């Protein structure tokens, strides 16, 4: 393994990795509110469930390079089309888990909450959403990992991140640079996964479960 590039350009790799992370988190920050709206809509309006879930599944099946090529005439290259791609792909994981999470909450708990006098907003924020969080946070974790993986491809349209490093390495036929990017992306994904799993343990439901077990 030729780690020369990584050794000699640690600062560049580090910088690109942070850029990659910031790109990914930005995409998630845009994707999540949209997914919550879609997910809640799909749960509350019964006839919308299938259309919404089907739509996000179909969008996910579009090949990424084709998707980017399709966006370039309208948005050019750079950040903007890249974000559109990432946000779109993240919807599948987010919406699917938000719907599954909200549906997994025992209806009798919701009836009790209503019966005790919570209005719809209180019901949603105090009971429904907290009880759905374990499944939703798992969805966020999957979505974020998918975004991180996908974000290497958008280096191809000069949107920054570790992908730029790799595509530059391929262009210069310099495998050590490509390898540096690969290692950095793998490390980023692994750490993100661990952090998100830790977050899952902090949800109120997980805390209650831990209490019951111990």
């Amino acid at each position: 393994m030729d780690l020369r590039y990584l050794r000699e350009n640690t600062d560049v790799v580090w910088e690109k990795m942070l850029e990659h992370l910031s790109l990914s988190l930005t995409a998630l920050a845009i994707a999540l509110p949209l997914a919550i709206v879609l997910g809640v809509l799909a749960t509350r309006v019964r006839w919308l469930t299938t259309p919404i879930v089907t739509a996000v599944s179909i969008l996910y099946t579009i090949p990424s390079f084709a998707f980017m090529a399709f966006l370039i005439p309208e948005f050019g290259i750079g950040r903007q089309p890249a974000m559109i791609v990432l946000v779109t792909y993240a919807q599948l994981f987010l919406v699917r888990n938000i719907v599954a999470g909200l549906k997994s909450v025992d209806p009798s708990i919701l009836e009790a909450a209503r019966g005790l006098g919570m209005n719809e907003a209180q019901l949603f924020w105090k009971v429904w959403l907290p009880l759905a969080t374990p499944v939703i946070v798992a969805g966020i974790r999957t979505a974020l990992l998918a975004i991180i993986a996908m974000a290497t491809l958008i280096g191809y349209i000069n949107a920054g991140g570790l992908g730029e490093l790799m595509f530059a390495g391929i262009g210069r036929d310099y495998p050590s640079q490509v390898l540096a990017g690969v290692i950095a992306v793998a490390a980023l994904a692994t750490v993100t996964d661990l952090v998100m799993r830790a977050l899952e343990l902090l949800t109120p439901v997980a805390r209650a479960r831990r209490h019951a077990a111990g």
Partner: protein
Amino acid sequence: MCRPRTAAVRYDQVTSGTAGTTGGSEIRLEQLTKIYGHSDRPAVDNVSLTIEPGEFVVLLGPSGCGKTTLLKMVNRIHEPTSGRIMIDDTEVHQLPASQLRRRIGYVIQQTGLFPHMRIEDNVATVPKLLRWDKGRIRQRVRELLELVGLPPEKYARRYPMQLSGGEQQRVGLARALAAEPTTMLMDEPFGALDAITRTRLQDELKRIHRQLRPTTLFVTHDIDEAVRLADRIVVMRNGRVVQFATPLEIVTDPADDFVADLVGANDVLRRMSLIPVASAASARARDSGEPSEQISGSAFLREALGRMVESGQDRLTVVDEDGHPDSELSLDDIRRAVGEESEIPAPHRAAGDH
């Protein structure tokens, strides 16, 4: 019992002193009908009832008779198709649904406890919605946990899934009572519990009701439970009220064959298990010495008979709640009480288990 004539009690102003002064509202159902969208037969069919303040009324009937629908119209989980519901002098639609419900205790079979909240936070749900101050909420939660027999120091910080089914339903009861409601709605709250736990909770509910006197509507299909708890029973069938009377009247004088069948009125053992000792007992024969065996006046004749068979005595001393001898019960008393309405029970009639 007097009830507030002026626009109901302001619950947010009720001080949370030691529980025991809550009292109940009058509930009046006026020509209440509910037809679900997909059905042409009404689930509740033109029901009019007046529940007295502080009364414990059980809605009894087979599944699909409309008893749960009726109950859930009172707190507007279901909306009536026509007719109206008055709680004291307020029509239930005069308030926003959420405000109305904060004044009404609500207990359901599945408990509906919030699994992500500690017991203390579950119980504090309605006081928090009513924005009581923190000290008052903490005080009230302790009081309530004591009331339902769960020592706060042991239970307050636990989560629902650490509790047994019976304990969970005690929490459900405490949560419903938290803001001192003058109306309680209970939908088969003990239906999922084992027989022993169920009986114990019935006794506790009875005690708590005697203490706080909230007007209570309680849905069940269990005749034993109905008789044990009810001041009066509403027997329902196909959305209509077939009979509205005291448990004793319903057992000894069922309105029709349906009610007789439902409560097993023609079965001697069934009747004996429904007639309280106190209602069959006769005055103590002062000269003939006191029978050594005692039985509580609130026990049923079936238990008294068992006691006689066991002890070989044909007379029992009936004691009141405080354990003081009150009257006396003989085998003849039992025979008289059971035989009063239906001379000799038909022997071919199977002891139907309802």
